[in-house]
């Protein structure tokens, strides 16, 4: 039995401890906002937060996150009110949208660590999250906007 806390909800799972968190979330808990892109930590589509830190759920075994607080895109806010979600809407970032959960959670982790990130900080934090639609220019703008929304809210 493995205990897992996802979006403030407790789960007790009898799954294989080697099962990647991604498939636990998607196939066992029905939280399909987290996406499969490459399976080997190269694209970032599966990024979730574990105790606030971004992790690649596709290569993170369930046993490694036992007892940690997992946040997925579904748990970021109840009403798309998180500053990063607001900024993503205002800057009209998503196209196909498939990679955006990973983009948004990576941006949340960046802004938690650095509320006013430099361009170099953004490059460093976001360059391992791939987007085939090319939303990168808007991601850059949206992170700047999210920082100022968060500052106003604070």
């Amino acid at each position: 039995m493995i205990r897992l806390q996802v979006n403030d909800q407790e789960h007790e799972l009898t799954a294989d401890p080697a099962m990647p968190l991604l498939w636990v979330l998607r196939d066992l808990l029905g939280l399909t906002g987290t996406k499969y892109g490459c399976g080997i930590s190269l694209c970032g589509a599966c990024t979730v937060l574990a105790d606030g830190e971004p992790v690649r759920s596709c290569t993170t075994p369930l046993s490694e996150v036992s007892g940690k607080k997992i946040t997925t895109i579904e748990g970021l806010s109840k009403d798309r009110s998180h500053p990063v979600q607001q900024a993503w809407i205002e800057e009209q970032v998503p196209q196909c949208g498939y990679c955006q959960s990973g983009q948004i959670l990576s941006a949340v982790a960046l802004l938690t660590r650095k509320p006013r990130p430099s361009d170099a900080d953004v490059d460093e934090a976001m360059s391992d999250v791939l987007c085939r639609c090319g939303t990168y220019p808007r991601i850059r703008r949206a992170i700047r906007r999210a920082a100022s929304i968060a500052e106003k809210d604070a």
Partner: protein
Amino acid sequence: MPRLAVTRREFMRISAALGGGLLIGIQLDTRARADATDTATAAAADEMFAPNVWLTITPDDVVSIRVASSEMGQGVMTALPMLIAEELDADWDTVHAEFAPINPAYANPIFGRQQTGGSTAVRGYWRALREAGAVGREVLLTAAAQTWGVAVETCRAERGQVSHADSGRSLRYGALARRAAGLPVPESVFLKEPSQFTLLGRAIPRLDIPAKVDGSAGFGSDVKLPGLLTATVARCPVFGGKPGKVNDKRAKSVAGVRKVVAISSGIAVVADHFWAARQGREALDIDWAPGPAAKLDSAAITARLAELADTGTVGRNDGDAERALAAAGRRLEAVYEVPYLAHACMEPMNCTADVRTDRCDIWVPTQAQTRVHQTAMRLTGLPADKVQVHSTYLGGGFGRRGEQDFVIDAIEISRAVGAPVKVLWTREDDIQHDFYRPGTYNRLAAALDEQGMPLAWRHRIAGPSISQRDATARETSGSDFSATEGALNLPYTIPNILVSYARVNSAVPVGYWRSVASSQNAFITECFLDEVAAAGGKDPYELRRALLGEQPRLRAVLELAAAKAGWGSPAAAGRFRGIAVAESFRSYVAQVAEVSIGGGKPRVHRVVCAIDCGMTVNPDTIAAQMESAIVFGLTAALKGEISIADGRVVQSNFHDYPLLRLDECPDIEVYIVPSEADPGGVGEPGTPPIAPAVANAVFAATGKPVRRLPIRL
């Protein structure tokens, strides 16, 4: 039959010529009522205003608009509803967009079937959707006039309500829905003049974006059904190979694995969830029979293309290029090559099927609903009305999702196991079993006159054909658009032009990839033109301007991009500019790239893009699609290469098939030429010019022409 709706301006012109009254008695093809097989629709039919298949208005004041194109990021979920809402004078805040079901009424007029590709969504539907909206508006006006007992001419529709100025009364569309539902639809309608637009031409926020920031947007891989199983398929790595001896004992012992079944594409492992299916697949013991392609490799493919390059069929022959080349004092020759490319949609291929004896349901991220419907009918033997295709959001498409391979997988597996099954491809499957953008080999030659102007142009293409599998008899190889687009329509005024194409297919499957043949031919022609400019001592921009006298729209975007990029003024130290143009999918695009060279690699700092795509539906979507197409094309220009060894694809995931990253993304500026021309495409036309713009900047920096992609210094 003539088109049915006209603008007032057209009406005045036609009426003046023919004495008026022309429109009376013409049938509107948008009059077909929404199909009542939809149960929700049928239940509320008398409450609901549904003047045609495209829109319904319910008493709760919701305007539901059906979108027949697939939403794969290009913004059709918003652009197509905008066309209806504009003519309907709907209140945009009440508009709800939904995927259309499978039905011939939803066919894209350009294809005659439900399909998304070739940048055709707005181009194909814009007229029909505007008519559909205008019909709705006319009926709502009549309903209001009847309610109040006033003349319809004294009523006015605006932002989701009809008002009567004289009496100060107004009614929301929702309040008029029931009465409107009982009224006949008009025989003819007027469309607005551009000056009357309140939505078209405005940067309206996309309707699909809220669901794409909270994880609720439903992609194909997210489909949930009671009792749904997940499958993954082991495919022979060699193209055309088949499984020989299969031992599935270990696979079946993996916890969660239910069944192992042979299907036409390989061996499917069916399990409770993907993790079990994948582990089961890895535990399969298969002796593959690789077949005749076992020794195929990239070098052999290229050698064959080179050998056959001069044997092509001529698709364009202006003047006498051969004679001009033979007689020329100054002659230029070069070989250009491009590799096979994978689509690499972020969402790997997938499809969910529930095949039963009496019906079949398919949930699929597809660009080709009609084909999916036909595939399912063919495989199951069920009639059309027993097969339902449920569209989902697409995690990227780029041409890949018009194919049927993943659909066939799901249907065969569901039928074999007697349960609903989702087949999900791994990233490795996706990279190694794609329908690739063709690799081609090209011999170019040009003759220059004494002033350094091109006198003759010869382009001999050799490569595989995409369209041959669909349309063998329709086209001769010389004009096969899937290989010659972007080369055959060379826009420049040159007296002698010869373009030929040799169809040389191999075991590597090829398919439609964002902007199709223009994706490679714009690189080849626009880079060779820079070689011609250099040989003739001309500025690349000035030479293009001089040669585009017969192409005013292309010349206008060239001039706009050059002006905005500061062409002619010195670039910052260490930076070099390249310029390129391309017409594709009825849109005209010019781009200027600013590049520096560092660490043996080009770095793209800035891209200025000008587009003329005719009438503007949503300028922010146009800008987004230019950004998208440029980033997509930069991956191809700087990184993309699929190579073949031992009959199989060498690359397998993003470590060896990398995509452009955020820290490599240039600043992109987009300028849209104002136009009232019929709409052109938007999803693809931004891709063709970027590789040559960057390659030409590299040529400017190094003095060495770039003749092969991806760019390697």
